[in-house]
């Protein structure tokens, strides 16, 4: 994916700074792994190698490779490539934010109502569909899933107050 800079029309965060950020986060994951392993023991016990034996070295390997990645990043000259243009980031966020809200409300509203809202709004907002197309689709899809999962395959999915009202 090194061709991300091909649409160099717009400005955006530099590829280099984002990559440095990723490397730091990766190293942090490694550090957490090492600390967690030390808590459960990394030596040899009655049960053979202890629970932290493996993850400890895994964590070390993560930290070391991340440091090397950082080093390599700063030893080559910055080519000035952008990670993504602000416009592209905006587009990605138009999916991430509604999905985050969707995921957050599932425990309260149940998955069916939340899904209907997600599909309907997504179609109207991003797809510019008319209400007449979007709403029937938004209602039909969750009903299809409801029948398939809850009725045919007996897999209960999260349900909220509306389903309760209808007696499920």
């Amino acid at each position, binding site marked *: *994916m090194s061709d*991300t800079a091909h649409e160099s029309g717009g400005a955006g965060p530099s590829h280099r700074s*984002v*990559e440095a950020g990723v490397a730091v986060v*990766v190293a942090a*994951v490694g550090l*957490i*792994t090492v600390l*967690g392993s030390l808590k*459960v023991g990394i030596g*040899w*016990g009655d*049960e*053979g*190698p202890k*629970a*932290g034996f*493996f*993850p400890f070295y*895994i964590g070390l*390997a*993560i930290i070391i*490779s*991340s440091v*090397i*990645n950082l080093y*390599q990043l700063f030893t080559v000259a910055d080519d000035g490539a952008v*990670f*993504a243009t602000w416009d*592209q*980031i905006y*587009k*990605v966020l*138009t*999916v*991430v934010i509604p*999905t985050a809200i*969707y*995921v*957050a409300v*599932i*425990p309260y509203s149940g*998955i069916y109502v939340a*899904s209907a809202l*997600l*599909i309907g709004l*997504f*179609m109207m907002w*991003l*797809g510019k569909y008319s209400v007449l197309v979007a709403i029937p*689709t938004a209602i039909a*899809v969750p009903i299809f899933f409801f029948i*398939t*999962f809850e009725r045919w*395959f*007996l*897999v*209960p*999915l*999260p349900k909220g107050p509306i389903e309760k009202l209808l007696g499920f």
Partner: protein
Amino acid sequence: MFDDIGNLMHGFAVVLQPQNILLMVVGIVLGVIVGVLPGLGGANGVAILLPLTFSMSPTSAIIMLSCIYWGALFGGAITSILFNIPGEPWSVATTFDGYPMAQQGKAGEALTAAFTSSFVGALFAVIMITLVAPLVASFALRFGPAEIFSVYFLAFCSFVGLSKEPPFKTVASMMIGFALGAVGLDQMTGQLRLTFGSETLIGGFDFLIAVIGLFGIGEILLTMEEGLSFRGKSAKIDLKVVIKTWKELPKYWMLSLRSCLIGCWMGISPAGATPASFMSYGIAKRISKRGNNFGKGEIEGVIAPETAAHAAGTAALLPMLSLGVPGSPTAAVLLGGLLIWGLQPGPLLFVEQTEFVWGLIASMYMGNLVGLIVVLTCVPLFAAILRIPFSVIAPIILVLCAIGAYTVHNNTFDVVMMLVFGVVGYFMKKANYPLAPMVLAIVLGDKAEVSLRQALLGSQGNLGVFFSNALVSTVMTLALIALFWPIIQNGLGRLRGKGAAAPAQ
């Protein structure tokens, strides 16, 4: 041997009763549905339908259930190729080239190749089961912890060093996979680790959630970034594509044969279909002349993992029947079914329940054939899904992903994790970290770790256990050769360059 052939013919007679053929078609169709909806894996599908089969005869019941199993295996490839969402661990390797193919407008070719390869792999394994069942079962008994570890090690070794990404990003990615796989309960000590007191982490990170997020959601984000459309969706799709692809396939016979052998071997040794698919893909990439094109939509990259995965999935039924060890969660549920019908899997099953066993084997032949016909007829239909506009299909995929993530542990926290993995996958992909090694490590990491620790525990820390007999030594040596293959190849090349007599190969 001749008795067996007679039994098999009798089995075919049972399977070919109209009622059983109907059950077969119903089973395949249900299986495909179960395989396509990520919330219903093959194991779930079989488990849920199991109680409904109590009123049938065991033979009819197993025919229907094993057809659900085949259908789910076929179905898993569909979402991998169309949406980059592997529903089962062994479909992951299929996404590497299947999804790029679909994006280039070759979804029909990819699906046909995948289905046909699955059929070939499964058929090869069934023939092996028919001919050498007893021999094979006793081979499986030779696998203790050290031997099992050596097989996982081989799978890792034949896969690493493959990616074009910077080596230390590959290492970091794989190690993060191992670390994520380690979260939760440690099987060896019964201790919680890396959970930091959190109740939501005790279940660990399931592979499916990681994959749905990294691949499925991550891909939607990448597509969004590039504008609102699936590339190449306009490709013309009709049944002719099947015939056209079939004309291409015979020239890959060597690849298929190798993948079948890898699959059968991994299926019998209890490692299973997932390492088989990764290993077959890795080896194909190294050996193929078009190896550099792997990952960009190479048909060989679809044939190799699909053939091996299905050969392994089918071969794994043999240890299940003759030893009672399930090779996959789905097989575990089938095993439960056998017990409920009063059939005891074990060495005597083949002697005492000949009608059932040969009926099952006959149904494997027929089920696969029926399955192939059913799914191939639907290729245009599946491929047509890509014509639905992105702004309609994207939210539906998001909903399917959420359902899939929830049903893994029936936990809404997993849905949150799925989205986190999606964002992580987006960043990793853009920062040039390969995702495949990470997924391989999440899937196989804890299993490999457990067998390594079992082996060390049994030998009280003596590493010699990995070279203690011919079987384990051979596999370990093969693994080391695979790991250092680029160096070895380089060395051989230099020898040749000097004009020295290099060994063949």
